[in-house]
């Protein structure tokens, strides 16, 4: 397996090197359209520039990099359909779209798993509970096969870009040649550290060796994140190009191109989302193993694993809406055009689908927790309260996905007297959404709290006061979230409306953090009400874990399309126009179909990975097959 993985890694590395250095040589030095582009760009140099925020961000970097001016960069080429190679029977956009998305899904998983594996391993070391160590090992084992697939798909993506979008790749490679070279080298480092980390797991056990192993885990995460940040720079440069003039002539250094306006917002969003996504995929793995387990011990083990995976997914899911909000606010600040296209234009309908999928995520995560209360008789006393949590969650979601512009039949339009609903219209804008999302986060946390304390009875003398403090905290927090949302959202101007979202988020975080601290002290040394039966979970709870993974995958696909699609007919926003026959924004139904096909392909590959992990542990003794060896 090691040899196979090494071969794949080396192959991908060689491909990346090939792509960087050989590709410009394979291109015509200057094709007809490039020549035309140079001429026309000189004439139109003072014309359109990206948004001022971007130019403001780029300006210092440009000024600070006089040395880079020694290299002369060409302007962005002006392409025609003839400049895009085609292969009969292959739709180049769909091919790049699907391969890039599959690469991203696997990449997100592979980058995320070592993050929580590192934490779980550290917990195991701190508590000296070997179960954590075994679980961490099993998680990383799943990601090893996924790592190979990430590399294969990365190589395929490079080929697709070179084949179908050679001029774009050439332009990007010239600007990012430094970081692409670093990326290729880092990929080697990532592979080396990952393999030592995985294959050395049972070798580096106990005492200082375990510390060495944990350090390797930290190093693995550092390299993994660095790789992702470098790749993020390429995609964000295409959205918010920095250090380029109106003709697309790059006049900065590599750092200026990397540190573009949307780089950090995307980095933050992707790190948080990857952890949540990774948690959901290993949760699906645990569910797969749980459902196929034959023995009671196996079911108990995979039930425990599924619980931990769901915990990871929820823990990362809680801050995710805020990371997304920050990214969108920055995108709006960078370009009003992009912001409005995103949230008010045709892409807004994908956000409605997003809201529905996020609803599915939260509901399935909550459902899993509620089912988990059946592991112990002690939890039954909390069951009557679940319906109230469910009501709040559902109402919050109804607000969350109510669109501002409604889809109306002509008769409905006539009855309402216009496209706006007098009462539901107010739910369609961000203050209502922000309030709803904070409510559902707080109540999801409440579900988790109920689950955690369901089988325990606090023995500290101040338990009643602690409970009262928590009730007061939740009540005051929810009132604050509501006032901020309703008053500042609807009765003040836009400046306060947007700004109010920050104290709302802070309120939610305060509720979660302070409650966790109180609970930690209050339930220290608490006694169990009844024995906890790991493995006593109904199969439907495991399907909730599957739903979590599928919803996440679908969601990432859709939002990935939106992030890329808001460039519309530009390869690189406002400086490098897409001249291919596919330079149009596809219809929503078409988008949904492509993303759904991608999701099915990914889930099929993931099931394949799960299956591989099952057969890798099987050992068949083929009696009579092998020749007897003489002693």
């Amino acid at each position: 397996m090691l040899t196979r993985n090494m071969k794949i890694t080396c192959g991908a590395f060689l491909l990346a090197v090939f792509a960087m250095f050989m590709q410009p040589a394979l291109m015509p030095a200057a094709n007809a359209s490039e020549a035309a582009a140079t001429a026309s760009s000189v004439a139109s140099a003072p014309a359109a520039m990206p948004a001022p925020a971007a130019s403001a961000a780029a300006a210092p970097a440009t000024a600070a990099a006089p040395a880079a001016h020694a290299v002369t960069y060409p302007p962005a080429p002006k392409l025609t359909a003839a400049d895009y190679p085609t292969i009969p029977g292959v739709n180049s956009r769909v091919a790049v779209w699907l391969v890039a998305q599959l690469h991203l899904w696997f990449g997100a998983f592979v980058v995320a798993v070592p993050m929580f594996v590192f934490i779980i391993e550290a917990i195991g070391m701190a508590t000296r509970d070997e179960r954590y160590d075994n679980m961490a090992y099993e998680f990383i084992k799943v990601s090893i096969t996924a790592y190979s697939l990430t590399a294969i798909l990365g190589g395929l993506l490079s080929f697709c870009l070179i084949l179908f979008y050679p001029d774009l790749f050439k332009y990007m490679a010239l600007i990012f040649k430094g970081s692409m070279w670093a990326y290729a080298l880092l990929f080697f480092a990532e592979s080396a550290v990952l393999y030592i980390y995985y294959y050395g797991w049972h070798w580096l056990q106990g005492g200082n060796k375990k510390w060495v192993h944990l350090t390797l885990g930290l190093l693995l995460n550092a390299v993994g994140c660095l790789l992702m940040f470098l790749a993020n720079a390429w995609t964000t440069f295409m959205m918010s190009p920095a250090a380029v003039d109106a003709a697309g002539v790059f006049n900065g250094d590599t750092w200026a191109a990397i540190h573009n306006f949307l780089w950090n917002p995307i980095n933050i969003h992707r790190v948080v989302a990857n952890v949540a996504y990774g948690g959901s995929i290993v949760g699906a793995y645990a569910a797969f193993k749980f459902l196929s387990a034959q023995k009671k011990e196996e079911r108990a083990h995979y039930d425990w694993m599924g619980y931990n995976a769901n915990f990871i997914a929820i823990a990362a899911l809680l801050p995710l809406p805020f990371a997304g909000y920050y990214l969108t606010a920055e995108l709006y600040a960078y370009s009003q055009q992009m912001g409005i296209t995103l949230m008010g234009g045709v892409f807004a309908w994908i956000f409605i689908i997003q809201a529905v999928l996020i609803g599915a995520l939260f509901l399935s995560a909550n459902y899993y927790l509620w089912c988990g209360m059946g592991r112990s008789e002690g939890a039954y006393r909390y069951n009557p309260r679940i319906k109230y949590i469910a009501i709040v969650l559902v109402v919050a979601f109804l607000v969350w996905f109510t669109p501002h512009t409604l889809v109306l039949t002509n008769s409905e339009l006539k009855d309402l007297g216009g496209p706006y609903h007098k009462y539901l219209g107010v739910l369609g804008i961000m203050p209502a959404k922000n309030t709803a999302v904070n409510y559902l986060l707080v109540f999801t946390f409440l579900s988790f709290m109920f689950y955690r304390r369901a089988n325990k009875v606090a023995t500290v003398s101040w338990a009643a006061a602690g409970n009262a403090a928590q009730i007061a905290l939740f009540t005051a927090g929810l009132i604050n979230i509501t006032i901020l949302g309703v008053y500042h959202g609807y009765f003040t101007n836009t400046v306060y409306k947007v700004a109010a979202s920050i104290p709302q988020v802070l309120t939610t975080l305060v509720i979660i953090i302070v409650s966790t601290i109180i609970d930690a002290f209050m339930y220290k040394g608490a006694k169990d009400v009844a024995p906890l039966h790991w493995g006593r979970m109904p199969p439907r709870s495991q399907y909730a874990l599957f739903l979590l993974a599928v919803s996440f995958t679908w969601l990432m696909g859709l939002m990935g399309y939106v992030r890329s699609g808001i460039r519309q007919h530009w390869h690189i926003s406002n400086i490098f126009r897409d001249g291919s026959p596919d330079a149009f924004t596809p219809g929503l139904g078409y988008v949904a179909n492509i993303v759904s096909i991608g999701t099915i392909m990914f889930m099929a590959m993931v099931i394949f990975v799960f299956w591989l992990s099952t057969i890798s542990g099987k050992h068949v003794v083929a009696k009579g097959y092998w020749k007897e060896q003489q002693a």
Partner: protein
Amino acid sequence: MSATPKRMIPRLLQMALVIVGVYFGFILFFDVLLGQLIPKSLLTMYMVFVVAGVVMVFTFTEQGAQELAGPIKALVEDPSKKMMRNVVFVIVPLLAGYYTYSSMLLSFEAPVELRTIHPAPPNKFKAYGKSYNLTTLENPYRKFEKEDPAKFKELVKEGGDVYIRNCQYCHGDKLDGKGPYASGLNPTPLNFQDVGTIAQLQESFLFWRIATGGPGLPAEAAPWISSMPVWQDFLTEDEIWKVILFLYNYTGRQPRSWAHE
């Protein structure tokens, strides 16, 4: 685990009653009490989540799930329920068939369309024979709101005169989108009182939409429909900026600004 309690109403029926109750509750609340119907598309979306939530609550315990599945299992497997089974197995496909038939039936109703409320603006546009950069464009009169309130009041009044002479026929004298011509337009004119319209936008956006009207919308903003005239052919640049002051002043809204965000 406790034994299954005897219930007045079986769990399956309870669940069905809750779902049907919520469905008609929505209709009663919006269509009857508030007098604004709930659109069918939205009601469908709402009910999907309501059903999901109700099913979750009824099945998260093993006992609940068994109580719910029990009657269905009995209907399929119990020999004594043969008549009931046959009836259900006839009615359910017939209902599904009827639903499919009525959904596919041709009608004279125009297809529903997705309309974008705020078309995406370009970075730059041309009007009055010159180029404007939308990302840096500001209302030249906005500064008087603080510097010279009396002058600002006068400018708002002038903007109001422009509005009454030109805009109120469609957008209404209360700026609520219900002018005398509004009923003849589809989509109806924008309601500026709505918190989701001008309150969400920068003044530069309004200037662009007013000056260039429907024909000024860029290709990337498609799909769009707008009967907004090209006002640069009828109003001066100053008049447009003044009318923008009036729109915000009358509705009590403030234009969107990045200054404090």
